């Protein structure tokens, strides 16, 4: 099963299995990884599953489609960076095995 490593703001890494088809957000929530709130449960309504994609992975994951709900939400998210994504919008695939994402200081 593909693995994702979530790195908390304080540097603590959590490497967990995330089944193909589940979102990167779901992988964190199902494994109780601290730092992802996911208030809305994956509806792209809250921007509390914000992650930074490690640069090596950015070409494979891509940035949000300009003008999309995700891009609009991120445009005013606290502490957004050019490599920001909402992890509920990234669906796990075999090709993402080994993905590393960093978590912001807070989600609110």
């Amino acid at each position: 099963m593909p693995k994702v490593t979530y790195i908390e703001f304080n540097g603590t890494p959590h490497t967990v299995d995330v089944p193909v088809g589940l979102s990167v957000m779901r992988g964190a929530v199902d494994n109780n990884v601290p730092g992802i709130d996911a208030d809305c449960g994956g509806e792209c309504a809250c921007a509390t599953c914000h992650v930074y994609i490690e640069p090596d992975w950015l070409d494979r994951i891509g940035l949000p489609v300009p003008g999309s709900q995700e891009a609009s939400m991120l445009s005013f998210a606290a502490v957004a960076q050019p490599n920001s994504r909402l992890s509920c919008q990234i669906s796990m695939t075999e090709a993402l095995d080994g993905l590393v994402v960093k978590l912001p200081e807070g989600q609110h």
Partner: protein
Amino acid sequence: MGDQTAPIVIVGAGHAGGAAAALLRQYGWRGPITLIGAEPHLPYQRPPLSKAWLKGETVAASLLLRPVSFYAANAIDLILSQRATHIDRAARCVVLQSGARIAWHRLILALGSTVRTLDLPGITLGGVLTLRDIANAEALKAALRPGARLAVIGGGYIGLEVAASARALGADVVVLEREDRLLARVASPPLAAFFRQHHAQRGVNVQTGAHIESLEGKHGTISGVRVADGRLCACDVALIGVGAAANDSLARDAGLECDGGILVDHATHTSDPAIYAVGDCTRRPLGTMRMRLESVPNALEMAKQAAADICGRPPPAPEVPWFWSDQYEIRLQIAGLRDGAVECVTRGDPRTASFAIWHLAGDGTVLSVEAVNAPADFMAAKALIAGRRRVMPAALADPSRSLRELAA
């Protein structure tokens, strides 16, 4: 709290209770955690029950807050299909309907709310439904065949979301609201007017000022709703969506302070410092008021406050209350609370179904936004509300001024 090995019991396995259990483990609690739920289900998400789930766009497993393996992996003991009947504060235990006594060092009450019903002739007829849990949603889904006639009694969010889903399923829908507008307690007049028009465009018969006299039936099943002016709205199924009341009787019986909800402080303590209460069942301090907020974000926020307090962590940063609703292709996001607003500024054009209504205090402080297909306005306003920032109403109303400039 130095000793993190004592037992914690959470009564109520909904969104708030489920989140509290997970957060206690995340925050390092090592003692036993027991989660007690009245329904037979693991903690699940209720919002899809009126939307994606009702329309058959998602399966039951995806409703779960966390997978079944999560609870064993995190040493959270689940007791399902059991109600708590009594809190023994002196002995620090909860008594279940089975008679079992579960001891606690700290107790979290996450008792939820119960849908209100109406004292009307015919209320017990078959086909008269409410929507709170999966069992209710199953019954509603079974009734919403194409061509079925649905009468929604109550023009609040649940009623309007179900109306939109029912239209998608091919049902005929009438919405009967007692007040002179939709969403009377929970949206501003211009937002309510937008939703009224939008539902009408989608073929929903919206009637406001509709006082219901009785529900009429044939062979024990509803056949129509009699309105006070004598009209009969024929229907095959009715949904009563007139709000919910806090489940506070267990707490009240135990002598905890309640006032239409269990009274709690900023850390979710009840009047007994060893007992916490979170989510729909509470009335919590917000600003200068004590409020009941029935929403998932509120449940999660309070779960966070309780878990942090129990584990001796700093409290979470004060949140901006928020809420969302999906109807047809409309995504509504609301941030903040409108109380105290004296000015209302609309950015964008409601005719394009992408606009935001900003609510400001007399000095321009942003208090709330109601954003319709306008996620950037929602996020920008949320940040401005959190920072108690002021904006010039004229600048806000000017479409040539960017949100980024206003938020700078």
